[in-house]
């Protein structure tokens, strides 16, 4: 790798700060998932919209490879160490960040479109929060049956946890990521470009 493409001390600090802001945004959408299971399943979508601005500023400031991967690893690790989320969370974040890095390396680090596309894949990391519904599907349902719930309820639940629901969640998250990046661009043009910071 060329020397100028390496992440220097300044880049590391910038990544660290915007990772913190992204983390707070994603945590907020995660907490709101406690209100209702549907909101829980859709919390990655909300996170994709809220977290776009810090992410987009980060990638505009640091046009280098691996910046996004670092962000994904750190966010996933903090979720893991807090103990509030199962192991699916860090795995999903790392996988999402790797896909985002691949997309960025193919389409280029300078363009808005490539970063926006990268962001929508990065957002898949947040799907790690409701992912246990599908990954541990059997374990979930054996436990629920243990409570002595009638068959009808379990059928309703199985619909909620169907593979098509997973598909909808992933697609909506990708779309919301791109939309979030567009909103972030609007904010850039309105505020940050004038201030000359981005």
């Amino acid at each position: 790798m060329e020397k100028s493409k390496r992440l220097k001390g300044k880049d590391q600090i910038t990544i660290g700060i915007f990772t913190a802001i992204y983390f707070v945004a994603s945590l907020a959408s995660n907490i709101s998932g406690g209100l209702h299971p549907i909101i829980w399943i859709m919390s990655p979508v909300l996170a994709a919209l809220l977290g776009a601005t810090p992410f987009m500023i980060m990638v505009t400031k640091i046009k280098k490879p691996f910046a996004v991967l670092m962000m994904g690893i750190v966010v996933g690790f903090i979720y893991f160490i807090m103990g509030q989320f199962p192991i699916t969370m860090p795995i999903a974040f790392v996988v999402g960040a790797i896909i985002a890095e691949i997309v960025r390396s193919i389409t280029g680090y300078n363009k808005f479109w490539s970063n926006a596309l990268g962001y929508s894949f990065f957002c898949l990391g947040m799907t790690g929060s409701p992912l246990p519904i599908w990954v541990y599907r059997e374990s979930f349902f054996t436990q629920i049956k243990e409570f002595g719930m009638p068959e009808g309820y379990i059928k309703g639940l199985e619909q909620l946890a169907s593979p098509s629901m997973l598909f909808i969640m992933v697609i909506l998250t990708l779309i919301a990521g791109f939309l979030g990046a567009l909103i972030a661009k609007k904010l850039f043009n309105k505020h940050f470009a004038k201030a000359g910071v981005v």
Partner: protein
Amino acid sequence: MGIRANIMLGRANFLENTRGEKAPADPRTMIILLFMVNIIAFSDKSIFIELITIALLFSLLVYSRCTRIGFILIGMFASIIFLQYYVFPNSLPVFATIFSMLSVYIRKIIPSLMVGSIIIKRIPMSYLILVFRKWRVPERIITILSVTIRYFPAIREESTHIKDAMKLRGIKGFAKIEAYTVPLMLSAINTAEELSAAAVTRGIENPIKKTSSFDIQFSIKDYVFIAAGILLVISTILV
């Protein structure tokens, strides 16, 4: 979701670690335990092992002087069990369908929540950094992680200022999101500039291996904790 408990306790940030006080165990032990607890929770099928795990973790919480959180989490666990076995089967279908899934999830993450609270409350960040160095985690990731964790209190402070300013100006509705994001980002950009200048002056880009002023070592209690964890994992797999 489980995370609410921590928010309610106001312990969502990592800086409230007790510096200088002795950590309850080696940080490595706690991270290994966190992995084990995850395995137990998501492969567990007998309530007996679940109860033993919860009881052992509760005593670990008490040992780590996190008694209050321990009682809150035990209370959460007990009320979820009560809901699942007595309230849901006898309640309105709508209510039961909606919350049974979430309750199973929370019940499964309570053990890791217990270990996580100990790490967040009782293991100082500098100890964790030392662990990562020992595990040969790339120095870049360590720097980013420590900046991230130390920036959380700054976000909190900044957001109270922004909220006050919004109240003064009477900003309402959707404009709030914009009025909230922009100053937060601008201050973050400035902080990044200032912090990097300071860090570069202090030699963050020095390629020499970094040292620490203290050392961590496994003691007998660490081996005891890990042995107990291994026993539980094996019994979960066998049952």
